[in-house]
């Protein structure tokens, strides 16, 4: 992790499935970074992928180049879905951190019998061979916080300890970006996600 203008440079990859709220998760981090005076570049998947396709967002904190993380360049991966963690591993540094939601989303190729969904435990075991893995069911955690829809925010909470962005700024941007009625649930989900990783 090189230093640029006094800011720690962190390359973060968010992977998941269209509809899980990957863009909102990256927006929360991005907005908080700007408030904290940290340069940020990000790239996200739009369009076709919103129909249940595989999505990947690149986030580069402390970078003033392009938004694309080089292969083997990401320090951390935030995987909103287990299989999608594996799909983009090329981008993660050896020994990098993966925070992964263990709740699978079964693609149409599997429901229609054309492909098989790999065993989640096998995914986690394989990942653990080369990377530091923090795994938990973020859907259940969000449900506990008040709504399964807050899964993405629980995951942002989970990664928050690794980011060069103050927790307060992240929480402010959660409050600014989630629907008004759901602020309380989302703040709770964020805190629960954060604790989950701290404790592990």
């Amino acid at each position, binding site marked *: 992790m090189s230093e640029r203008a006094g800011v720690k440079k962190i390359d973060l990859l968010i992977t998941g*499935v*269209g509809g899980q709220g990957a863009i909102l998760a*990256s*927006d929360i981090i*991005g*907005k908080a*970074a*700007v408030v904290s005076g940290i*340069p*940020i*570049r*990000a*790239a*996200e*998947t*739009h*369009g*076709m*992928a*919103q*129909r*249940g*396709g*595989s999505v990947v967002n690149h986030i580069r904190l402390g970078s003033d*180049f*392009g*938004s*694309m993380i*080089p*292969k*083997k*360049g990401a320090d951390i991966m935030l995987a909103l879905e287990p*299989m*999608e963690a*594996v*799909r983009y*591993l*090329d981008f993660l540094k*050896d020994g990098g951190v993966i925070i992964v939601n263990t709740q699978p989303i*079964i*693609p*149409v*190729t*599997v*429901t*229609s*019998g054309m*492909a*098989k*969904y*790999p065993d989640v435990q*096998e*995914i986690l075991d*394989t*990942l653990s*061979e*080369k990377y530091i893995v923090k795994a938990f069911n973020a859907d259940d955690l969000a449900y506990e916080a008040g709504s399964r829809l807050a899964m993405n925010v629980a995951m942002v909470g989970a990664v928050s300890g690794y980011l060069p962005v103050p927790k307060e700024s992240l929480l402010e941007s959660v409050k600014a970006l989630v629907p008004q009625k759901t602020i309380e649930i989302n703040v709770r989900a964020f805190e629960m996600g954060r604790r989950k990783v701290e404790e592990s």
Partner: protein
Amino acid sequence: MTTREYMLGNVAIARGLLEGGVQLAAGYPGTPSSEIIDTLASREGRDYYIEWSVNEKVAMEVAVGAAWAGVRSVVTMKHVGLNVAADPFMTLAYAGTKGGLIAIVADDPSCHSSQNEQDTRRYAQFALVPCFDPSTPQEAKDMIPYAFEFSEKFEIPVIFRPTTRISHGKSDIELGGIPTDKPEPNFEKLLDRWVMLPKNARPRHTHLLSIQKAMEDALAESPWNSLELKPDAKLGVIGAGIASVYAKEALEELGLEASFLKIGTYPVPKKLILEMLETVNAVLIFEELEPIVEEQVKLIAQEAGLPVTVMGKAGSFVPREGELDISAFLEALKKAFDLDVEPETGSISLELAPRPPALCAGCSHRATFYSMKKVFGKDAIYPSDIGCYTLGIQSGTVETTLCMGSSISIASGLYHAGEKRPICCSIGDSTFFHTGMNSLLNAVFNKANITVTILDNRITAMTGHQPNPGVGYTITGEPTVEVSLAELCRAMGTGSVAVVDPYNLEETQEAFKAAKDFEGTAVVIAKQPCVISGKRAGIKRIPYVVDPEKCEGCKQCVKFGCPAIEFDEENKRAVITALCSGCGVCAQICKFDAIREVKR
């Protein structure tokens, strides 16, 4: 203090348009360009006119009208949209403008959501029009006011070409001020400029050629091109647009001694290129898609008699297709100079299930395709078009996709070629208004015996739910005429027009049977709101469940392909998940009456 905001590239471009004092914006939705118009439309206290036009050609012409009235206008589209708008655009280059006109044409290297990868910089070259090629979202925003001024100074339209990673990249953006003083429109009757009779067009072509050098010189001085000469470097790197930041980052990481030229405008800055060529032995050119800079560099080197080795797409140092990145640059460096910069690869071997995008749970298109297939069968031919429904390829009812609006004309061509098999084509509502109408008119006029299915989901869904002439409101939410697809088809002389609810399989299949039997061009309009926009508009349906007692595990419902239906291998029963939107089509498919609404 400067204000910084976290923005999507397209939002930054919209901001640039505001800072440049735009007075009219028109466009046709297309990924990755759509959010520019969407952002301008959602702004409160607008002091500019804005519209979604029915296609890119029309949007271009609307923008031309404004520019000829002396105000600043913009037209937005994706790369393939310029093919549709190429007719007015090529001649507009001759006629020129009064008010600034920017054609924003977003390219999509790697076809993230497109049918091809064409490079819009070629169109700029073709039309002899300048092109701006931003390397970051910040630069994209900053370039726009400059591009307006440039357009006005030379009285010529300009192309602004972001790529997917600019349009859908995000960054902290430093904002500038927004002008409030804007000129009053005043159309000047300059017949020798606005009437492109041969007598007027010939001297305008001469004029267009005559200003090329002056434009090139002005652009070379602009902040969008920059040359950093390293005194001892024998290697030069030239990067264009977004590819320049990948090259720059890799060079800095490697600490390599190389002179660096960043290019952000076309015609290319010959002066700067020459300056670099005079100091280096070899130059590596890094640009996405076509070798446009590369060709120019070779010309310049040859004209100046400089023995510089030029490396790029020629010699396969840099790929001519797909998106570039830092790895591609390292790969090119390695190949060109035999440097030891290979990035390690070492992914994990685990078999993953592919996750292609699919039609949403409850999408009415799936139901329409199901009925279509039932009636027309495997033997029929199914030309289709561009929109969400192209994802229906899994239903076996999408067998051609060429360009917007082409499904009906391809169906006609197949029929007139003598195909004896039944032909049933499909097209979305927005695509029909875009360029499908012409094709239907042609099919009816020339007596094609085909069935045309208009998949009317009451919105332009794939690009993010933009209104079209069929929905009854404009981009700003203002009520307007709701054009009736059925009346339109009848007015064009279609002899058989049926409007059906695709959720009602029996009704839909009856209509398809009648259309199949009809001699001539028949239209079936399958009308049901998009499930996403429907949900937002408050449509609530009761979800369905499988009764495990009645389910025989025949998989008929699973084969329907709805993402809400899974098969429980353990119990050999179908299961409906929480994704169910309550369309009820699977209940009609089940032979065992095992699918029913959830009891309240």
